[in-house]
């Protein structure tokens, strides 16, 4: 074997080593890890949403119980995540009315929980529909606070969809949401609208949960 052969072999080995090294893409591996970790945060966000819906299911048949339990769970979750530097924020609106009878005034109880992480400067709730037009405005609605209010309606038909319009503004956002209140003679309903957000240093997540639950219906 000639002496140059050693040098040529050494160069070949060096090329192979360089190729091996460059095929190990550390940036991609770290990105993959971050992705998997953010997947875990997505699970945790889903966990909160699932338990919110479960709270509604297990807090039947009283609309007041649902509101109290939801508020408790939300405050609990928020504190829990805060200790791990994850912000759980949102605006949570619940509306509840007892069994409706035709031609009799019925009260719609509305509860709004501010967990936006900031003060709502102005919040406007407007309830409208057949023969109804009521508006309530509140100022300086602090974070962690609950706004309880009510509206009255008198259902003349068997079924009617009223409209609850919520408008609010904070130092960082202005928002408007229209919520349908589907009233029906002989039924008790609970309507919710949750705008829920989770923010960490890895991920920002936001979701809207809204639905109507029939709590009771008279035969």
């Amino acid at each position, binding site marked *: 074997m*000639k*002496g*140059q052969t*050693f*040098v040529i*072999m*050494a*160069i070949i*080995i*060096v090329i192979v*080593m*360089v190729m091996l*090294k460059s095929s190990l893409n*550390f940036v991609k*591996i*770290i990105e993959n*890890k971050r992705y*998997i*970790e953010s*997947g*875990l945060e997505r*699970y*945790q966000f889903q*966990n*909160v949403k*699932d*338990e919110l819906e*479960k*709270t509604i299911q*297990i*807090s*039947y048949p009283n609309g007041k*119980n649902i509101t109290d*339990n939801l508020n*408790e*769970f939300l405050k*609990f*979750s928020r*504190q*829990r995540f805060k200790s*791990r530097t994850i912000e759980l924020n949102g605006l949570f609106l619940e509306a509840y009315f007892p069994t409706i009878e035709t031609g009799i005034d019925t009260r719609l109880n509305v509860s709004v929980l501010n967990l936006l992480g900031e003060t709502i400067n102005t919040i406007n709730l407007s309830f409208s529909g057949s023969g109804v037009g009521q508006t309530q405005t509140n100022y300086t609605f602090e974070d962690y606070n609950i706004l309880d209010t009510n509206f009255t309606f008198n259902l003349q038909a068997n079924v009617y969809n009223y409209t609850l319009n919520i408008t609010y503004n904070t130092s960082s956002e202005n928002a408007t949401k229209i919520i349908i209140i589907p009233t029906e003679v002989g039924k008790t309903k609970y309507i919710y609208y949750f705008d829920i957000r989770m923010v960490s240093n890895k991920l920002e997540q936001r979701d809207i949960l809204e639905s109507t639950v029939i709590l009771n219906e008279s035969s």
Partner: protein
Amino acid sequence: MKGLLKSLEAIIAVLIILTVFITYFGTKEALPEFETITWQLKGFNSLKALDDSNELKNYTKTNNTSGLETRLLSMLPRDIDYEVVICDLTCSDPNIESEKLTSITYLTVGGVNDFQSKQVILYMYRE
């Protein structure tokens, strides 16, 4: 003379390889840790499965950590140790000493007529 030259070239070859090896592979770049993330995902999914089947509330209601640990035996990897803490907002520290330790938290609200916000913290480790 020819033999000496051959040896010299062999030494040069070794030096080239050594230089490149030290330059490229000398700096330690630690590979990210994936195993503990896998544990976290498995732990979370196990608790979620128990919650979905309404089993979890039976353990959280009575703070039955040992019962829950036994139940998790068939759901978690065999090669890891684990410990469960059930608590509300203030939770005790299990004081586990291990080089590889991770934990996940699962929030739960209990069951019908038994609403209770609780967290289940699953510590997973290998000694």
